[in-house]
């Protein structure tokens, strides 16, 4: 019955982050909208992500699971399902360049090239100063103003490579 070497590594106690009281209060308020606690999970993860530099470290995921009394594997399954939750650090500003067909038909690739040159990092990487990270993204529902990109919560439309660079340079 002896355990083999590969199974003995007993993991340390699971680290759990502390959610700020304001986040807890926000979650509690949203919780009231639904007949189940789990229904508040997506909003709660959005709130947690806002409170922890835009991404969800494992201890933060564990904290949300504890807050809503859900199995952490369930919460992790949800986090990894959705594109807007991030499992690794992101820039202070997150740039999503739409390059689905409608944007591709109006030059989205050139906007992505401009981002690559302007920021000097690859997709999903953070600039050295922590200011920005960018990724190509699926359709953002602004096809009539293609090409476009989303910077944090804001849409920037009818872009040219030049205007896109200017927008990025203006980010603090």
């Amino acid at each position, binding site marked *: 019955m002896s355990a083999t070497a590969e*199974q003995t590594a007993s993991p340390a106690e699971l680290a759990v982050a502390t959610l700020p009281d304001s986040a807890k209060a926000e979650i509690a308020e949203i919780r009231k909208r639904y007949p189940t606690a789990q229904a508040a999970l997506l909003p709660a993860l959005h709130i947690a992500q806002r409170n922890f530099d835009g991404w969800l470290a494992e201890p933060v995921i564990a904290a949300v699971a504890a807050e809503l009394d859900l*199995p952490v*594997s*369930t919460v*992790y*399954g949800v986090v*990894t399902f959705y594109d807007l939750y991030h499992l690794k650090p992101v820039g202070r500003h997150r740039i999503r360049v739409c390059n689905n067909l409608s944007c591709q038909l109006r030059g989205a690739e050139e906007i992505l090239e401009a981002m690559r040159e302007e920021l000097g990092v690859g997709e999903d990487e953070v600039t050295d100063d922590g200011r920005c990270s960018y990724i190509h993204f699926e359709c953002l529902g602004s096809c009539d103003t293609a090409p476009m990109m989303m910077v944090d919560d804001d849409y920037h439309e009818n872009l040219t490579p030049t205007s896109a660079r200017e927008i990025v340079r203006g980010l603090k």
Partner: protein
Amino acid sequence: MPKVTINDRTVEVEPGTNLVEAAAKVGVQVPHYCYHPRLSIVGQCRMCMVEVEMNGRKMPKLQAGCSTPVADGMVVRTDTPEVHEAQKGMMEFLLINHPLDCPICDQAGECGLQDYSFKHGVAYSRFEFEDKRTYPGRERIPLGANVLLNMNRCIQCTRCVRFTQEIAGTSEIGFFNRGSHAEIGVFPGRELNNPLATCVVDVCPVGALTSTRFRFAERVFNLDKKPSICTGCDAGCNITIEHRRGKIRRYKPRTNPEVNDFWMCDDGRASWEKYRDRPRLTSPRVKDRATTWKEALDAVYSRVRSRSAEGATAILGSGQLTTEEAYLFGQLANQIGTPHRSVAVDPFPERRIPNPQGGVIGREAAPNRRGAELAGLAERAGAFTADELLNGDAASRCATLVVTDGDFGAAAWDEAAVARLREASFLIVFSWADSPLTRAADIALPIATHAEKDGSFVNSQHRAQRFRAAFPAPGQVRGGVEVLSDLLARFDSEWAGLSPAAVFDRMAGEVPELIGLTFGALPPTGLELPQVFAAAGAEG
């Protein structure tokens, strides 16, 4: 009840029955991976596609059999070219990224992918890309102490996920990521360590989840499989003993919806390992000298037949005895004329094996305390109790102490406890193991393990369950019933030559709970016994 016609055979089934189950009722196997009768229906693998016609109109698409409930008048076909085409297509999808590592995969021989690709697949791959999808570093992930994950082999059926959520209630395993990156796993830092953990290996239709204990122990196609009962506790889980030439390799749960359903606990699965790890008593011994059965039994007989002035004769029973053995030990006590009889059982951390009625509970570390008691070993008022023998000074007041099982519990392996029992003037031990207790005995008798003999147990639900020998006992080892039959025949020849079945049938004429039963007629799923003596004392 709705009537449904499947491949021209009509059957009446309960409303709500799905088409996979309905087809099984007429002997039609619909291939499936994600469907499991005890797990929620997710319709994910798409292997069980069937053609459905309702009111003379064929549904435009094939339907997943698992997620389609029967309706009255439904006509189902599982053998059309379209169905075969779909099954072939699903097999191809499941295999394009599957590694070709069957030669080193523990699942080979009982693998759903192997079986169905043989029946429904094609022999070549159209997936001509350099690299299959792999999960680097996820080929050998221990999910917990007893289960290993090889993600490359996973077909994302999520049975394991649903098992931990819906049956174990522990939710350790989750479904992560999306699309072709979807995978199963535990949250970083968490472990799959619930008492039923290894059931996920059973429900896994492929080699993604394998048992750490069974890893590389044996090719499954070399195993002989025999139905039996787990002796780990008094839940009485139905199992299959899987062995090669008398060497047990693993226990697998055997479906019995009344008892353990499809499941068993990890402790139970490990309970055979004592047969591997502990020394075996292989020949009768009198005063540390190996001898013949005749000489040994003669010695037992001469010791117990006459009352001695040195003190009492006591029989310390065990919850490991079969009911038939316990009955014969009871008869031995009657022949001797001693009231001192008892059943020693260790407690066991309580566990519940889920079944459709809620579950069966195990609380004792032996399978048959109840059977031993109803067969005649229940403690009697004023007589020595097992506790007095094990923890008090009762043994020192015994002229002869008969211990019916040299592995009745932890005490048999504990020097202090053995020393207390050894206080008896004469110690006789029946045992499969060569334990400190047998080594201390004046006479030690090698008895078959439950895997080597026929018999019955009565579990915590008062259900009598029968089992047969999975393989013969080695060397001079004999079944307890045969040995006791020989011994009792020395008192009275009517006891000669009894088999366990004959003992059961005889016992059924005397023991109120068993009246009217025969060994041969015990149903395969066992039979709940009436509790004639609701025996408050015995139930303690």
